[in-house]
Every structure is written in structure tokens, then in C-alpha cells.
């Protein structure tokens, strides 16, 4: 077990004892990691910050459930475990605010995007792609995040969001379609700006 793993386990042990110093260290270490996930699932930055803090509170409350002592890659395991908490927190938040309607897509804004898909997508920066994802409706964005980025199957997404597998597939297809339009629009705009 490496020094890093020992350090993580020491932090976890301190957090289990409700030690504020350990909690602060863990928070600063994992803040950007958590924020990057929350930011993809929400449309507003302050919303993402709130969900990040909420995720940390859940983490500290349930940290005694984490068992990383027998694993080789403790950091990866711990991050994966925390990621699960963050995603659940985001989904709960969306469900609480009725932003997740089972199997239905409410994406009139993104569907109004003109269909210009002929630009080079690779020219977009990472931030622009994330901004594009954030423009999707909550249900499309969530399904796309879970499938394309988190790597979950449709069955798992269906169970997680309490929708049918068909609805998950349909939402993913529409999410991709809308995302393609958004990205194309963005690249078209970028090409126009660069040409001038």
C-alpha cells in the first residue's frame, strides 16, 4: 500500500471521527473533482456549488461505509465511490425540482437550434463542449452524462432514474441530436469569428 493510500485512509479515518481538519483537507483535495461533475449535471454555477457542498456533507456522513483498506488503488476506488455519491446527489436534486420527468424530453430550446452540422467539432475547447452539454434539458443532459461520460448502461440508467430502458435510449438519442446541433452552431460561430 503506497503512501498516498495511507494518506487517504488517514484522512478518511479522521473524517470518520468528525475531525474538522481532516474534513477540510479532504474537501480542498476533492473540490475541483466534485465540482467538475456537478457542473455537468446542472445549468447554473451556484447550483453546482450547492450540490458540491451537499455531496461533501453526504460523504462525511457516510464515510464509515467506505472500505478501501483491502484495495490496491485506494485513490481511484475512493474517487469512484465519491463520484457515485455526487451523481446520486445531482439526480436527487433534479428529481426534487421536477426537472426529471420520466421518459419525456422537454427540449424546445435546443430543438430551435438551426441544423448546421458541417463544422469541425474538434476545434471546440473542452469548456465549450461542456457548455454545450449544459444547454441540454435536464433529462437529456442527465441521460447523456450517465451514458456517454459515466459509462452506465441503459438498464442502470433506467433503474437510477426510474424510467424505462426505451425511454433512456430515446432520451440519449435526442440528447445526442441536440448536442450535435448545439456544437455545430458553436463551431459555425467560431469559424465565422476566426474568418473575420
Amino acid at each position, binding site marked *: 500500500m503506497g503512501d498516498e493510500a495511507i494518506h487517504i485512509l488517514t484522512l478518511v479515518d479522521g473524517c470518520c471521527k468528525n475531525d474538522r481538519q481532516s474534513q477540510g483537507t479532504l474537501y480542498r483535495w476533492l473540490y*475541483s473533482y466534485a*465540482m467538475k461533475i456537478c*457542473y455537468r449535471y446542472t445549468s447554473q454555477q451556484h447550483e453546482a456549488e450547492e450540490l*458540491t457542498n451537499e455531496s461533501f456533507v453526504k460523504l462525511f*456522513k457516510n464515510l464509515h461505509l467506505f472500505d478501501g483498506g483491502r484495495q490496491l488503488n485506494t485513490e481511484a476506488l475512493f474517487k469512484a465511490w465519491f463520484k*457515485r455519491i455526487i451523481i446520486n446527489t445531482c439526480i436527487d436534486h433534479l428529481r426534487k425540482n421536477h426537472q426529471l420527468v420520466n421518459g419525456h424530453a422537454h427540449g424546445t430550446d435546443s430543438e430551435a437550434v438551426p441544423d448546421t452540422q458541417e463544422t469541425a467539432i474538434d476545434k471546440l475547447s*473542452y469548456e465549450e463542449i*461542456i457548455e454545450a*452539454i449544459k444547454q441540454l434539458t435536464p433529462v437529456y443532459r442527465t441521460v447523456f452524462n450517465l451514458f*456517454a461520460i459515466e459509462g452506465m448502461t441503459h438498464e442502470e440508467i433506467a433503474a437510477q432514474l426510474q424510467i424505462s430502458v426505451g425511454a433512456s435510449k430515446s432520451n440519449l438519442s435526442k440528447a445526442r441530436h441536440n448536442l450535435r446541433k448545439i456544437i455545430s452552431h458553436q463551431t459555425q460561430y467560431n469559424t465565422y469569428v476566426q474568418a473575420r
Partner: protein
Amino acid sequence: MYKPDDKDIDRISRDAAEHYHAPGRPSWDALQQVLDKELPQEKEKKRRGFFFFFFLALGLSVAGAGVWYLLPHAATPSSLTRQTSSKPLNGSNPGTPLPENKLPETNAGTDKATASQSIHDQEKAASIKTEQPQEAGNKEPGNRKENKKPNETTTPPAANNRAVIARNSTVLPPANAQRVQSLQANLTERPNRNSTRSNARPTRNHPGVASTPADADALALTDKSSPRNRPYTTNNRKNTNNKHNTVLQQRANKEKNEKDISVAQDESTATATSIENEATAGKNQSPTAVTASDSLAKTPPIAINTQADSSKPAAKALTKAAEKKQAPVRKRAINIGLTAGVDVSTVKFTHGDNAGYNFGIMGGYQFSSHWSVYTGLVYTKKNYTLNGEDYHPPKHYWTQYVQLETVAGYCRMWELPLQARYTFNPSAKTPFFASAGLSSYFMKKQGYTYYYKTMNMPYSTDWTNDSTFTHVFSVLHLSAGFERKIGDHLNFQVEPYAKIPLGGVGFGNIRLSSFGVNFTVQYRQPVKR
């Protein structure tokens, strides 16, 4: 024109999610404020403190109950006190544990006279001569210790007579053999306590006899053991015209010729009343009786101080006081009480959880001074957390395989206890008791949060159930505690308890142990006068 396909969209999205920089900066202060509300550090300390005090109280209660249980069997002073307190209250009950009275002032002169007449035993007279002036001058209770020293017979309360007897028989100088013999003879003459009392009275009332050296000794040495007797003495000596005196004087005239015998009579009376079993046995001159009489030959007589039986007002007052003091614990009574308390539940002591609560009504029937039965209806909420392997829902509950890690749950239910209670010291100011019985659970609502893993990723799901689950006599209920009187018929009880599961309860068929403490205000059926 480039048209990204689905794979491209997914790939660039993954890359972007991995490498982009999210805006915002960590604000630990804000989170710390939230944590202070959600996970306060003081709360942990309080909880630890609660557990500490709970187990301390439980331990102390059990230890106290054990001590109370063991004490009576060791023939300690308390057991003797109980024996003596059951005697009749006719004034000749030197063994009754009464509060210490002051030495009557009128004793002084009598004692002086007594000292001057103590000639039957040179050894005794010598000691008395050294004592009597002190006695005459020191009428305060505090000085009595000094009077006791010469004979080394620091007579403790009557309850300790047995110990004193044993000590005296070895420490004191050899008693007059004649006195011992006469004592034994007197004990043989008195077959029972009543006859002892009748013999003792005249002797005590006769001025000449009452003021024997033995009297002086008694006043000097035995006031602790029979403090209540002193007013009698005072009254008796003042009322010399009492009708009893005629009879007493006749007897006294007879006994004047046998001073030693009369002294021995007094002494044996004291012994016989303070140690009733020995006195009765004295009829046969058993070894015990001999020991008692032997010791009494050296121990100042207690009964001499009680010679004022003839004084009726004083006797009545004393009888009343004694009745009050001895107000018997009602043997048969109905109790009813309101109870509330805290409950800490656990399954195999694997997890800690928030405390639950109990409240309800309890009723009981006391069918002897020590034994009673209780039942009632208590509403309780229990919180608990258990490991996944300890949760056993009905078959086919799980529709897919889940790796259940932990289950956090609560339940609200009615509890119907049925207990037998033994009170160790029913007449004490703070009686201790222990209870054992079985409880039935009628579960009304239960809720669970499952923490499980699917594909090595943790999930949690909430689930509640409003179905009623009935578990008859499924819990062994043990408790111990004490009670204090807070009103004429009201008691306040503190009762730590432990509930040991005899079977599984609830939807998950869990073996739920509970510990806690109940506080009860109990109304006891008044005694009919």
C-alpha cells in the same frame, strides 16, 4: 462538411469532462457551517456522555441491588433491626431502632444513688464509682462515649447486640458467677417474651431496684440502644404514686433480699427483648441463651431504662410514634403510573444510532411486601442500524441480487410488558427492585434505508412499511432500579432496563436488543385506616 457521429460526440464529451476546468473555488468556511449543523462535534461528546452515564447508572443499579440482596443474608445489623422492629410496642422493646434521645436530666440523681448502692460486686462497684460522677455530670449524649470507655462496652445500637455480646464475653472481667447463674435461672423461669416483660416491670419501677449499679451502667452505656426508653424512665420516676408501684413495691421487697437476682433479671430482660430468639431459647438454657446472659452480666441492661411502662400518656405517645415509624408497607395494593424514557436499540452491537423514546402507562399489583407484577401499554420508537447479513426479509423480497451493506431503520410500535418485580427493601426510604418478564411487540410502522452495492457502486434506497407485525412474548425484559417517595401516595422510579430478543421482529426479522432507562411517576393505592 464534417458531421460528427454518436461515437465522436461521446468521445469528445468524455475528453472534455475529464480535462475541463470547472469554475468556482472551494469555500471551506461555508461547508464548515453546514457541517456544524449536520455533524456537530459537541453532539458526539454528548452522546458519549449519555452512554457513559447510562451504563454507569445501570451498573450502579445492579451493584446496589446486589448489595441489598446480599446484606440481609449476612446477619448484618439491618437484619437484626428488622427482627427487633417487628416486636410489640409496649415500651419494653429495646431492640426497636429508634432515634437517639437525650439523656434525661432526672437520671442524674438516681444514678448517683445507684452508684452508692453498688456493693454487691467489688469489681463492678469500683468501675461504677469511676463512672457515676461522669454520668451525673454528663447528661449530654455526646459525653456518653466517655462513660462507655471504662468497661470497653461501647454498646452500639441494639441491632448490634449480637456482636457486642460476643465482644463483651471476651473483653470484660470475669463476671460474678452468681450473677450468671441467677441470670440463667431467670431466663429459665421466663418462657416467653410476655412473661419477661411482666417480670421486668416491677423490677424497673421499684426505686430501690431501679437504682442498682446495673441501672447506672445501663444509663451510662445503653442509651443508644434504647433511646426511646428514656422518657419512660423519667416519667416513671416522677410518678411514684402510680398504681403499679404497689405491686411493684411488693415485688421489690422480695427482691431486695436477692439484689443480684433482680439485677440479673433486669439484665436478662434487656437481653431477652433485644435478642428475642436467644431469650426464648433461654428457657432451655441453650448455648445461645447462656451466651446472651453471660454477656449481659457485663453489658448494661437495656430494659432498665424502659421501666416507665406505667406512664400511660407517654406510652400512648410512644406507641403512636412507633406505629408511625413502623407504618407497614402495604402488602396488597394496586399501582398505576405514567412512564417515559429513552431507548437505545442495537442489533449485535455493531452500530450506534440515535436514541429512541418510550412513553406509556403502567399498572401493577403488589401481592406481598416484596413481590409484585406489572403490565402496561408503552408506545416506543426505536432507531437502529444493522449489517446486511442481519436483515432477513421474506423470501423473494429481493427481485435481483443486491450486495446489502447496511440497513438503517426505525420502527414505531406498542409494547405490552408483563413483569414480575422483587423489591429488596420495601420498608426503606429508597427501595431497590429488580424485574424480569416478557414483552410483546405490536409493530405499527417501520422504515428502512438500504445501503447496497451494485456493480461495486454504492446505492441507497428508502422503504417504509405500515403493516402491523405482532410478536407475542418475543423479548426478555430485565430491569433494576429504585424509587423515591415524592408525595403521600406518589413515587418516582428510575428503572434502567435491557430487552433481550428471543426471536426476530419486524419485516426484516431482526434480533433487536434495546437498552434504556424509564422514569415513572407511580400512584400507589392508599392504605385503609
